């Protein structure tokens, strides 16, 4: 190989891209193909012809309920998580950038943002579950939006700290001092300077949290496994209990609905992110 000088040969014949074939093959097979299958199957009928009839299923009252629930849970947990996460991010950012508090807060957020899954539901059941609660035996623990929202907030707040902290760090002390020199109070600063500057980052992070809770499945399933409240739970029922093609199609239509919602959310997130990076450098 050394004698052929493949470097020069590669420059003459542009074949260097072939080195990325394994990657593209893998991603194509296990990411793009499955997603394509979902979209294709939900838009076609059994004979493979384009059929938008199954899209109508999304507006079926029973199906719509899962989406309404999903959106409600995601909105509540995203907004609550974003507000508390932003407050914590500000408290962290206003301290010593090399201090222990900051290191603990960022490391802890990294762990806790990932700590979803079934274990989180067990932890909350041990803390406030109606029968085994240690702090309180909350009668509302199994009520739909509030009980599960509280559990979701547990991983939303750390995620908010992680994604919002860079934006808060981008705020400069001088802006605050400039406001003070012009006679502005804390309220004036947040109303006219800090608030508007952080607003796009805040909204963007909230959208990310929204998408995060929308796709969560393990926690809600471990919290309540008798009743399906949200779309992922219904997808799981449709796909595991399927007998005929009709219900396979249901899983795919529901999945397509989720893809559409997530796509809208993520495009808005990217647009907001672009706006944020214009100001905070």
């Amino acid at each position, binding site marked *: 190989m*050394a004698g052929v000088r493949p470097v020069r040969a590669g420059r003459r014949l542009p074949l*260097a891209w072939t*080195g*990325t074939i*394994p*990657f*593209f093959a893998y*991603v194509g097979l*296990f*990411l793009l*193909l*499955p*997603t394509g*299958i*979902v979209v294709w199957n939900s838009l076609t009928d059994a004979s493979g012809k384009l059929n938008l009839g199954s899209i109508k299923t999304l507006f079926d009252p029973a199906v719509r309920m899962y989406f309404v629930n999903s959106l409600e849970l995601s909105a509540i947990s995203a907004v609550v998580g974003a507000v*508390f996460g932003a*407050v*914590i991010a500000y*408290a962290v950012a*206003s*301290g*010593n950038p090399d201090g222990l508090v900051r290191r603990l807060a960022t*490391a802890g957020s990294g*762990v806790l943002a*990932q*700590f979803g*899954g*079934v*274990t*989180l539901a*067990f*932890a*909350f*059941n*041990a*803390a406030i579950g109606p*029968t*085994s609660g*240690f*702090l309180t035996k909350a009668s509302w623990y199994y009520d739909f939006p509030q009980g599960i929202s509280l559990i979701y907030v*547990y991983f939303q*707040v750390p995620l908010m700290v992680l994604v919002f902290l860079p934006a808060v760090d981008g705020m400069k002390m001088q802006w605050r001092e400039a406001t*003070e020199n012009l006679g502005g109070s*804390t309220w004036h600063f947040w109303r006219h300077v800090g608030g508007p500057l952080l607003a796009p980052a805040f909204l963007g992070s909230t959208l990310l949290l929204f998408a995060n809770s*929308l*796709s969560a*499945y*393990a926690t809600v*399933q*471990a919290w309540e*496994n008798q009743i399906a409240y949200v*779309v*992922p739970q219904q*997808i799981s029922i449709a*796909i*595991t209990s399927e007998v005929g093609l009709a219900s396979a199609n249901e899983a795919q239509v529901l*999945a397509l609905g*989720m893809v559409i919602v*997530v*796509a809208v959310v993520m495009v808005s997130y990217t647009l907001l992110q672009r706006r944020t990076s214009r100001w905070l450098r």
Partner: protein
Amino acid sequence: MAAVTPVGAVTPAEVEAPQPRGSMRSSRLRRLNLFRWTVFTLATLFFLLPLFAMVRFSFVGTQPGEYTISAWTQIASYPGLLDAIRITLELAVITVIVELSLLVPTMIWVRLRVQWLSRTIEFLCLLPLTIPAIVLVVGLAPVYRSVRQHVSLSPLQLFWAYVILALPYAYRALAAGLDAIDVRTLAEAARSLGASWFTVMVRVVAPNMWQALLNAMLLTTALVLGEFTIASILLYTNLQVALYQISRATLDAGVLFSTSAASLLFAFLLLLILSYVGRQRGRERR
């Protein structure tokens, strides 16, 4: 900061009273400190109490006020649990190996020779963050089902999907490592000394980014340890699915809480290693 202005020194009167111009900053500093410590105290309580409740529950005996470690010894003897743990750990190892051997050569190669593909690769690697696992599994289920009609698939075959789920995390860790070193110069130096591309990657570039490699490994492991959605829908039993099944039978089984606490401790340990290694590296640079 806290040492200069102790929290206790702030009285409401001081905060409310209009300050002369000169002391405006110090009063704001005191208020800020009060605010910071209130926030940290409340946040710590909120985040630690459920964890504490879980650990406490794992030691509770059958009689009120009695504490025992039987839930912890049960981890080894509970039917099926140890198998699920073994499968999950094996899956973690396989996923890490496949992930790194797929991603590391590709990313180095793209940086060296095919720069124009880097945005595409980044987009594809971050895509799994936006496609929910539950959607991915709807597309994967028919594939797995049709293969299973001919051969039985061991649960270890889950790694195909797990590599995809871990892509964004591994990609970001590796990209940070690659950004920190001058891959091009290293590669050109090695190549001009007659090294093959394989030697460039394994013996020149990889040792220079071992921290990023470790990062990617730990994040991938953490993801596999916590994965539930894909395993449960494809009807495989990994650790999380086993715990879920136990909880469906008896919600208050002590072994649930001891195993959960143990797996969480393990994840904490991984992340502790991660942050420790990160600090070592930072000190070296200074």
